[in-house]
């Protein structure tokens, strides 16, 4: 009897512990600074708070339910049952905490008015890139919350997926890396993942790459098929921002030769070497000759596939031959999910061609970076333009980064001044 009593007490104590912890979590306003909350879009803020509150509410309800059960349970069987519930409660709490922690870090990255404005500009860029494709197809664009974090590569926590706590996320959270804040074409790659998820393009593209590269060895189709989700995102970034995305991608993946030539089974990323060349091939097919030729030359010089003996070399060589056909398939073939149109028909990459960008600069004249009308309407092409210039590596690079910062700041300040 004493054992039961002490078991009861122990369980009660633990349930109480998790209950008070969950209750503490529920004051969401305290998790991020008031300033940080104000820096994000009102709708996103509300949706996040609601969904997090719901998760916490579920944990609290679970705990209270256990408390109630404890009140009425005296025998060992019942207590064992409650113990199972307690483990479940701990688990739910930790998962909820994980979710909340994730958003806390994301929201708190809006540390100062300027960083907040830059991230709001990224929010707008992300939303616009998705709208361009989704709106004509009659789909809603999910809200996006961008945040800064360390590291080399960007990432996305897609809207519509299950979070740690088991609830569906309503907001896409896109991570932008510190180093790429003023060259953020990678966030368009990330929204590409979101769009492909919404439209189910990944699956369709995977099947197409697997079946339609018939002029090449079967393993080429199989390999491309396995990389379809990353290829889709790259293609999305390319049609929006052209060479800017290609050059930025090149700079991000140009690490050690091991990293560039490595092949990992089940990795959705193509071998980095192939990925860069695939992107360059996109430029070539739409824009002809240009600075990407130089980029290709220097890349191949840096990473000479003929001089290395990684196990992936054979596959790489087979795949390189297939790149023109792959680009044809990815960008120029119709897909069911695009209403039987090709991606390049819905979002023409030529709008981001060097000629088109030059024309934009000419037509807008000196007001391109100062007039809010231009900045707002053409923010994605401004990203393409600046990225293109930086990508060519010519001119006053420092000034170009500064220019990017300036217009993004303007864009960010023009919404939700707090």
């Amino acid at each position, binding site marked *: 009897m004493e054992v039961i009593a002490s078991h009861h007490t122990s369980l009660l104590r633990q349930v109480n512990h998790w209950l008070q912890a969950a209750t503490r979590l529920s004051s969401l306003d305290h998790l991020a600074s008031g300033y940080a909350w*104000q820096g994000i879009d*009102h709708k996103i803020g*509300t949706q996040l708070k609601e969904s997090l509150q719901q998760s916490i509410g579920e944990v609290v309800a679970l705990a209270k339910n256990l408390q109630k059960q404890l009140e009425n349970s005296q025998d060992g069987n019942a207590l064992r049952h409650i113990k199972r519930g307690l483990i479940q409660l701990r688990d739910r709490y930790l998962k909820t905490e994980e979710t909340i922690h994730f958003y806390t870090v994301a929201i708190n990255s809006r540390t100062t008015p300027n960083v907040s404005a830059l991230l709001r500009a990224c929010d707008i860029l992300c939303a616009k890139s998705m709208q361009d494709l989704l*709106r004509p197809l009659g789909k809603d664009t999910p809200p996006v919350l961008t945040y800064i974090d360390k590291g080399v590569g960007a990432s996305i926590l897609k809207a519509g997926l299950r979070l740690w706590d088991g609830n569906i996320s309503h907001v896409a959270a896109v991570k932008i890396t510190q180093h790429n804040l003023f060259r953020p074409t990678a966030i368009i790659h990330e929204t590409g993942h979101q769009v492909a998820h919404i439209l189910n393009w990944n699956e369709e593209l995977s099947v197409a790459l697997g079946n339609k590269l018939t002029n090449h060895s079967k393993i080429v189709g199989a390999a491309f098929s396995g990389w379809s989700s990353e290829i889709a995102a790259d293609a999305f970034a390319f049609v929006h921002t052209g060479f800017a995305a290609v050059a930025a991608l090149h700079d991000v993946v140009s690490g050690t030769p091991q990293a560039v030539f490595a092949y990992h089974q089940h990795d959705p990323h193509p071998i980095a070497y192939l990925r860069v060349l695939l992107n360059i091939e996109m430029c070539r097919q739409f824009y002809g000759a240009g600075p990407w030729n130089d980029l290709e030359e220097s890349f191949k010089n840096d990473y000479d596939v003929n001089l290395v003996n990684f196990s992936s070399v054979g596959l790489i060589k087979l795949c390189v031959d297939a790149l023109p056909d792959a680009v044809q398939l990815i960008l120029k073939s119709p897909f069911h999910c695009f209403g039987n149109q090709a991606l390049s028909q819905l979002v023409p990459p030529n709008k981001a061609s060097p000629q088109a960008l030059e024309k934009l600069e000419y037509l807008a004249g*000196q*007001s391109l970076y100062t007039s809010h009308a231009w900045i*707002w309407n053409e923010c994605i092409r401004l990203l393409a333009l600046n990225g293109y210039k930086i990508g060519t590596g010519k001119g006053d690079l420092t000034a170009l980064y500064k220019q990017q910062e300036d217009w993004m700041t303007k864009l960010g300040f*023009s*919404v*939700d001044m707090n």
Partner: protein
Amino acid sequence: MNSYAGNGMSSELAMFETPFADISTLKEATRSNEPAEVAYSNFLHELESPFTRTYEVAGNSAVVTQVAEEFVQFLGELNDAEFSDSLYELASEMEDRWLPKISNEAAMGDHYVPFATQQAREFITPLLMETETMIDKVAQHFSGNNLSDYNEKEIETFFSELEFSDNNFSPAQEQFFGKIINKVKSVVKKGVDLAKKGINAVGKILPVNIILNKIKGLIKPLLDKVLKFAIGKLPKNLQPHAQTLAKKFLKLEAPAAPESTELFSSGEIDGIQTEFDTTVAQLLFTADEVEGNSIVSEYEFSDEVIERELAYEAGGITPPSLESARQQFINELKSLPPGESPAPAIERFLPAAILALQPVIKVAISVIGRQKVINFLAGLLAKLVGKYVPENVAKPLAASIIDVGMSAIGFEVNETNKSDIGYEAIANVIQETVQHIAELNEATIQDQEALTLQLLEAFETAAANNFPPQYIKEQLRPSIQPGVWVLKPRKGPKHMYKKFTKVFNITIDPQSAQAIKSFRDLPLANFLKDKLSLDPSKPIQAKVHLFETIPGTKLSKISKFENIPGFNAQQPFAWVQLHPLTKQAAAILLKEPALGKDISQKSNAKRHRTGVGQRFYYLEISGARLRIPAVNRGATKAGKPGKMRAPKPSQSGDIQGVINFVKSEISFSYYFSEEDAKSVVEKINKNDFLGAAISIRHAIKNVLNGMLSKNVSNKVKIIHEAIPELYLEHIGDHEQESALASLAKTAGGIVLGGSKEMLTKLIEQLVEKISEHAYQAVANFFKGRAAEFKEAQAQPQDGVTIKISWSNIQGMTAIRTVINAIRNKNPLGNISELTLPNIPSPEIKIVADKKFD
């Protein structure tokens, strides 16, 4: 069918077919079918153009003194078309200080005003101190007797280098502060100018530093008036009062009793500027300090004096606030014993409802008359709504309101299962019935039949608006889609507006976006493009939310209590996204013409002039966001660190005309929004000159000149010694017309309108003539000087202003004399030729940003 017996009203009611679907019809309703009386307006078009005739002033025309000229010129310089907007925003920010801290305004009773005032003080004090310090600095600099040595450039430089500690100011505080600096600058400039002209021209005036010291004393009362506006206690006829000041100074005939017929839901804020400016101008033209002091103290207490006058006229009755009267009324209805008439409760509620509608009704009825009306109306209304008062009827009524509005309104949990909202609907019906009775005066009280008819018609509309559709006969329902107007917010300090329970899903096609006009007759397309960055040439999906004003509504407060994407408490300037739901807008957007209400020209001019019972809509468009450009806040183009300026939503095209009779000058300022300017520059850069010309032509001819010709009364500033009102809209509608009789004779026996109408006609024709020249001037400008426009567009400021001015216009003197004759009621002599013989070539200036005179 004897249920209507009693109270002596049975005969009137027996005639009436109620709007309620469930009451059997007694008889066909007798409708008032007054012939549409053709007013004098029909004669107006027979008045020929003033440019083909001259009204020569006979004999002793009014002697125009130079002082009068200088005075009106100065008034014109002081007047800032956007000053009222910034006062409104200031008031709105003040209100935000106390609103969140109040859970029930009515329950606070007498404590409300002191509490609000105290909260606002914290907001006002730093602003007041900084403004006073600024004026001190200026006064100090411009003291001494070398005033006439300053030139304009030196004054400008001094002001641009003036340093303040306004870093902690809110956007509205900053705007206010900037506007006051501008006024102070005008005072200094004029003071210097007058000092140069010398005592012979304008008589003795006080040194500028002394004047500035006196002006300093005006700032606190000025801010207090803004606070009073925020609390809803600013006298409703401040504007006419302010105008009599100027008229007195100019020795013009002032109307005996200032009146205001326009009823704004939140009071009239424009009067604050008129009074302030006139007081400042009076100070500048004052010869001695004693007089100056009395001007200041008059200003300080003016609103209290007006209020006492009003209270005297109201017979000393101070009814409870509408909100608490309504609460009390609902409580009384709830506890009404079965079988008893609600008439006494209604009688107690009506005075508050009627007085909330001052001065429209007040001016027409004496105290005794009012009691009679109240008794009469209460009797009738009790009969009409009595059926819905018993709890077992009110509860289902409440349930069906909650049912129809659950999704759009978000009722509080504690409201469901209660009858309160049913009683609220009854109170709404009664209040709105009073609101809809167009004319209530001594004459109608005598004619009970006429009054009954008016009341029944008003009741019909009010019931249909506030009862759920199933309670109302189909043909009387205000909309095809089921919906009802419900007071909001459901929880908060007080009810502030109404919302329609139905949210409409619509597609705005390009044609509709062009056809629908928002405030200032600006096409909706321009709003969508300029403020929301949408492309109105493509169809746009939107959800439409409808709102209605009640007494006390400020548009700026609606969004504070809504939680719609893009329209909520967090969205700055959310209220600039509200548009008038005119019949046209309702018909095109919603296919529900009956939901629309047209608004007066005065209300159409500014978002802050909202009348009671007006309707507005907000477009919720997925992905659209209000653009509040950072244009003023970053570094300037030259690379100098620019001073932070208050953020503002991006502006749409606008126009201003200034007709200066004193100087024989006319100027038109065309403001191109950043989007419009951008598209013009883009076309010029493309060498698409034809395209650019078409864009300019569209912007000027279709949009801006159209806006001007429809809004001459508030878009044209008139500088004339006999028009200290500056704008036609400020001239009273019922000025005495003694001089017109003589004019009428000479014009061949045609009955002409009042002097306001004559003036309006005159100015309209002048504007029409100049508009064509203005367009030509702009078109020519672009042929030769497009680069300047490009340069201005590339500046970081929002948009571009093109100012075209003509000086030394021949023929204006003659018109000036005619206006003097009209306003001074001088007899007019023979009519001969009057023309503007040739309009000289104008001077054209281009500046970045919106810069109006």
